[in-house]
């Protein structure tokens, strides 16, 4: 039995249908990511699991118990907020102890647990600081400790890394994943960053227009997108459609090929012109307009020295080729 069972979940705000019938099973110990652009309904689903929004229709079960309309304080879930939502009038340790204090855990025990949680997020020694004296990354860790110290069945994370700079974000991604393995708590992670979703998750649910478009492991989401939206949102959408599909592939429909699967400057293949060259360090990105009428992005590893002269490729005629199994029908 799944830890969380969501059936037919819907929610509208006025005229806007934010969530339009979501079914989702989440297993115990899983790291699942709800991925989608803003307004896709992913945060609303998270807020309904937390209890901050009341669904119009559908049910949410946690451990087999119907929690659909329970208030947040009666649910065995905890949330890490996008803006951290630390209590500004309390120091770090008091913030972390808050949930235990509300549950009337005795003083020694809650202090012990809070110090453990603080160590887990590597902030030992910061007990007496006020949130205003911490950096963004440190606040993030305190928010994490404050939620984890309660040992909830499920931890909900609402774009928790959104406000951090790139370096810190990548570091926190690794730490979060490690922490999740360590504590074994189910993580439901909301993000609009596809790279973050791909690196951290056991499974990804891709959201658009209030619905789950695809639910699968990261590699399957990336390699085998089920539709145009998923292909475009996760990675670069190299769409071949209409006439181009007929000419190049001899099939009708819409197809996608990932940029790194395409070979450039081979003698044979689809003819085209290099419109743009972007040197990225380890790799180079080419934007190629095919004569057959499609624009494809090609990513090539800079494995040989000729990469130094790569900028001169702009405007040159090239041929593109790829393995038959790399092209996927998305429509």
């Amino acid at each position, binding site marked *: 039995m799944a830890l969380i069972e969501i059936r037919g979940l819907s929610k509208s705000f006025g005229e806007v249908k934010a969530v339009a019938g979501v079914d989702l099973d989440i297993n115990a110990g899983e790291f699942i990511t709800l991925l989608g652009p803003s307004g896709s309904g992913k945060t609303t689903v998270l807020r309904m699991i937390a209890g*901050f929004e009341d669904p119009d229709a559908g049910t949410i079960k946690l451990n087999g118990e119907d929690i659909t309309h329970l208030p*947040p*304080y009666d649910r065995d879930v905890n949330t890490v907020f996008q803006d951290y*939502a630390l*209590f*500004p009038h309390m120091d770090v340790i008091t913030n972390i102890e*808050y*949930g235990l204090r*509300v549950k009337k855990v005795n003083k020694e025990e809650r202090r012990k647990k809070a110090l453990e949680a603080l160590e887990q997020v590597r902030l030992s020694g910061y007990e007496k600081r006020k949130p205003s004296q911490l950096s963004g990354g440190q606040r993030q860790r305190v928010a994490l400790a*404050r939620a984890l110290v309660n040992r909830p069945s499920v931890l909900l994370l609402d774009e928790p890394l959104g406000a951090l700079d790139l370096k810190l974000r990548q570091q926190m991604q690794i730490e979060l994943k490690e922490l999740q393995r360590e504590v074994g708590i189910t993580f439901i992670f909301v993000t609009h960053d596809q790279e973050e979703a791909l690196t951290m998750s056991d499974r990804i649910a891709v959201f658009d227009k209030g619905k789950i478009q695809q639910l699968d492991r990261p590699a399957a989401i990336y390699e085998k997108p089920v539709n145009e939206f998923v292909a475009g949102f996760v990675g670069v959408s190299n769409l071949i459609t209409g006439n181009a599909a007929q000419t190049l592939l001899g099939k009708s429909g819409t197809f996608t090929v990932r940029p790194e699967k395409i070979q450039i400057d081979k003698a044979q293949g689809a003819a085209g012109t290099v419109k743009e060259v972007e040197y990225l360090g380890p790799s180079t990105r080419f934007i190629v307009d095919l004569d057959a009428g499609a624009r494809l992005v090609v990513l090539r590893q800079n494995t040989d020295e000729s990469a130094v002269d790569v900028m001169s490729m702009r405007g040159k005629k090239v041929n593109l080729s790829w393995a038959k199994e790399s092209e996927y029908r998305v429509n």
Partner: protein
Amino acid sequence: MATIQNFLHRNVRARIATLLALPLAWLLVIYIGSLFALFITSIWKIDTFTSKVIREFTLQNFIDVFTDRAYFNVTVRTLIVAISVTLICALIAIPMAFFMARIAKPKSRPVLIALVLTPLWASYLVKIYAWRTMFYPESGFLQWLISPIGGTSPGFGMIAVIIGLTYLWLPYMVLPIYAGMEKLPSSVLDASSDLGAKPGRTFFGVVLPITWPAIIAGSVFTFSLSMGDYITVQILGGTFQMLGNVVYQNFSLNLPFAAAVALIPVIIMMIYLGSVRKTGALDNL
């Protein structure tokens, strides 16, 4: 003209001086100046026959104020009124501001603020005379209202003064608290609830402590305005008197003594401001 602008552009101090010349003059001459004049007057003497001020140093006025039991009692009464008004204003304003800032729809908030402000658009005297008709001992509205259930109107006196002043100063308490509560991110309230706190606990454990400086800011207004009032006391107080009335009565007879009495609320206010300074409330004013 261009050279003046160039000079101002290059010289930061000159720019600030130009900007603040008028406000600074106002502050120094009118505000600090009048306080200083008050202080100086309080250490002068008076000719007891002509009531003319003699500019000679004496501490007699202060000795009179602090040794005469009657003035001590007036000071205590004034404090009781100012504290009561402040507490009642806070009790009414906190839930009111919470409703306005957190529960009412964002669209209706400007309307609610306007409603809080409407009493300030009417004249002080009109409002207080309106309350006078309410408090008339035999024929007042309050008497008519509570006599069927066996009560009697409090009539004119301290209770009437407290109610009148609470009515007058309530907006000055509501507005800062509203501003403080509106700034509160809703995620902080969600977080408290998420961590298991029921609404009451969230209100007393999170909302109140975070908005405390705003509440103190409001109390500075209600407390100081109540301390200095004498007109409401005259109209609603009957025989009840506060420090302002003592100042008013002595003003033409014994100006130095009136000045000494007038310094009492100033000193109390300074003590109050000093003690609330550390709460950070003054950043909120």
